[in-house]
C-alpha cells in the first residue's frame, strides 16, 4: 500500500513528465515547420516623391478616417514634415498635428517655442516629406516585443495583434522612425499597416489614393515590372536612417540630407 507522500510524489512526476512532450509537440507541429518555408510572391514596398508633395495633408486625414484613429488625438499613422532651410544655414522644421490639417500658414509651429515667421526672401529651399511606417525587413520593433503581439507577415507588413498586446511600449521606444504610438481607445501599440485590409483586396492604401499629386505609391518589390520597383531600380532613391540596419522598405525620391 503506497503512502500518501509516495502517491503525491509519483503523480507529480507523471504529470511533469507528460507536460514535457506535450509542450514539445506544440512547438514542433508539422504545419508550423511547413509555414517556415512559405515563399510569398508579394513583398510590399512604398515610394515617396518629395518633389511632388505639397503638404496638403489629405493623406493624413484619409488615413485617420480609414483606420479609425481618433481625429482629435495628436497621434497619427502617417504624417508630413515641412523643412525650411534658410540662407544663413539655419535649420527649421515642423509638423503641426502631423499635417492633419495641412500647412496653412507660412509660420512654423515649434510647439512650446511658439510660431516662427520666416522671411520668404531668406528661404534657400523648402519642401515637404511624408513619412509612415517603413515596414522594415529587420524590424527592431518586432524584435523587442516580449509577448509576440507584433509581427511581420510573409508579404512584409508589420502588424500588431490588438488582442495580445500588453501595452508595455517597448516597440514604441525601439522604433527609430517614431512610427508607433498607443491607440487612444484600444490602448495597444498602433502603427501604419499599409492599409493591409485594402491592399490585400487589390485597393490602394488610403493615403496613396487620397494624394492628388501622386507623391505616394505602393508597389510589389518582387514584381520587376511594377512601376515602384522600376523607379527604385533606375532612379536615385534613398531610405531613412539606413545606419540602424533596419532595412526600410519605403524609398524616397529627392530625400534631402537635412531630413531627420
Amino acid at each position, binding site marked *: 500500500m503506497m503512502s500518501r507522500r509516495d502517491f503525491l510524489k509519483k503523480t507529480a512526476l507523471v504529470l511533469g513528465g507528460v507536460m514535457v512532450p506535450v509542450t514539445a509537440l506544440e512547438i514542433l507541429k508539422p504545419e508550423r515547420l511547413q509555414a517556415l518555408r512559405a515563399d510569398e510572391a508579394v513583398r510590399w514596398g512604398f515610394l515617396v516623391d518629395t518633389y511632388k508633395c505639397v503638404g496638403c495633408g489629405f493623406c493624413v486625414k484619409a488615413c485617420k478616417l480609414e483606420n479609425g484613429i481618433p481625429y482629435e488625438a495628436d497621434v497619427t499613422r502617417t504624417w508630413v514634415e515641412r523643412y525650411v532651410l534658410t540662407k544663413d544655414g539655419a535649420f527649421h*522644421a515642423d509638423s503641426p498635428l502631423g499635417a492633419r490639417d495641412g500647412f496653412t500658414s507660412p509660420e512654423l509651429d515649434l510647439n512650446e517655442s511658439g510660431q516662427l515667421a520666416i522671411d520668404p526672401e531668406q528661404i534657400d529651399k523648402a519642401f515637404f516629406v511624408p513619412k509612415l511606417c517603413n515596414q522594415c525587413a529587420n524590424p*527592431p520593433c518586432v524584435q523587442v516585443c516580449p509577448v509576440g503581439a507584433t509581427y511581420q507577415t510573409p508579404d512584409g507588413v508589420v502588424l500588431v495583434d490588438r488582442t*495580445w498586446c500588453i501595452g508595455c511600449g517597448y516597440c514604441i521606444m525601439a522604433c527609430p522612425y*517614431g512610427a508607433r504610438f498607443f491607440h487612444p481607445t484600444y490602448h495597444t501599440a498602433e502603427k501604419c499597416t499599409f492599409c493591409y485590409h485594402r491592399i490585400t483586396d487589390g485597393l490602394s492604401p488610403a493615403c496613396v489614393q487620397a494624394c492628388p499629386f501622386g507623391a505616394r505609391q505602393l508597389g510589389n518589390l518582387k514584381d520587376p515590372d511594377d512601376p515602384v520597383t522600376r523607379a527604385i531600380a533606375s532612379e536615385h532613391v534613398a531610405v531613412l536612417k539606413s545606419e540602424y540596419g533596419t532595412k526600410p522598405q519605403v524609398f524616397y525620391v529627392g530625400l534631402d540630407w537635412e531630413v531627420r
Partner: protein
Amino acid sequence: MVPEALWTLRDLFVLPNEYVYWTIQIVMYPFMTGLVAGAFVLSSLYHVFGIERLKGIARFALVLSFALLPAAMVPLLLHLQHPLRGVNVLMTPHFTSAIAAFGIVFSTYFAIVASEVWFVYRRHFITQSLLLKEKPHRTFGEKVYSFAYAVLTLGSYDISEKALRTDEKATRYLAALGIPVALFLHGYAGFIFGSVKANALWMTPLMPVIFIVSAIVSGIAFCLLAYIATMEIRKLLARRRRASEGATGHGEEIGGVEVGVVRITARYLIVFLVLAISLELLDVVFRSYTAVKAWDVVKSAVYGHEFRQVFVLQYGLGNLVPLILLLIPGLTVRRAIVSVILVLFGVFMMRWNVVIGGQSFSLTLAGYMEYVLPIVPDSWEAVKEGLIGALGVVTFPLVLFFFLSRVCPVFAPTEPGQSR
C-alpha cells in the same frame, strides 16, 4: 488628447507620435529591483563567504529582499496599458526581447529567494507550528497563524541536528546560486535600455554593467538604512518595555546599532560607489570624444535642460557628497545615515536620468521633450504614472516587510538555547 500628452511638453521639432511613454513607473522598476538584488547580494556575502561581521544584517537583508520582490512587480503592473495581459510574458515569451527574460529571471529569482527564506526559517516554522498546535484554546488569530505555519513547514517536522546542517548547506548553495541570478535580474534591466539602438542616450554596451553596479550600491545602502532604522526602533521599544516591567530585564541588552557592522558595510558601499561613478564617467567621456551624430542634441539636453538632474542631483548630491562623507575617517552612524540616504537618492536619479533623460530629446535630434511628473492627478493615468503611484510603490514593500517579519522574525531571538 492622448494620456501621454498630459505630462509631456514638446519643444521645437518633434515627431507627431513622440511623447514621454516611459515615465516614473519605469524609473521605479529598476530602482526597486536594484534594491532587491543589492539586498540579496549583501545577505549572500555572509551565507556564502562567511563574513562573520555581516551576520547581524544577513537575515534582515534576506527577508527585506523577499519583501521587495512582489513590490518590484507593482510598477510594471501600473505601467502596462493592459496589466491583466501581463501574464502573456510567461505564456508566449518572445526571447529576442529583453523584457521577455523578465518572466523567467524573475520567477527563478523568486523561487531561489523563497527557498532560501524557507531553509533559514524552517526551524522557526516548525517550532511555532508545534507550539500553536499544542495550545488548547486558540484565538482566531492564533488559528490563522497555526494554519500558516503548518503549511509553511511543507509537511516536514524534522529539526534534528542533521536536518539543520542540511538546511545550512542548502542555504549556502542557494545564496551562491542566487548571486549570479540577482546580477542577471539587474543586468537584463540594463540590457533593456542598452540594446535600444533607436535611443541615442541608451544605446551603449556599458548599460547592463552600470545598472548592475548601481543596483548593488543601492541594495547595500538600503539595507544599511533599514538596518539602522530597525535597530533603533527595537532599542526604543525594548527600553519602553523595560521601563514598564521594572528593572528586572532578561536576555541580552538591546544595544541598538552596532557601529562595526555599519563601518564594514560602508566599506563595501564605497567600493561599489567608486565603480559605479567610474563607469558612468567612462560612458560620458567616450560619447563626448567620439561625438557621433546624436552627440550635439544629447549634449545640449544633458548640459542644458537636464543639467540640474544629472550634474547637481545625481553626480553631485548623489555620488560625490556621500563618497566624501563615507571616506572621512571615523564614520559615525549619523554620518552614515546621511550618506546612505544621499546614495539612494543618487541611484534613483541615475534611473531617472537614464529613463527620462533618454526621452528628453527627439528622434529628429532637433527637438526636446520635458516630462512633468503629475502631482495632483486629474485622471487615472495621472495617478498610476504620477507621484501617488510612485509613493505607493515605495511604501508597499515596507508594509509587506512588516507583515513578513511577523512570520519570519528578522532579529536574533532572545530566548536562551537558540543560536541563530
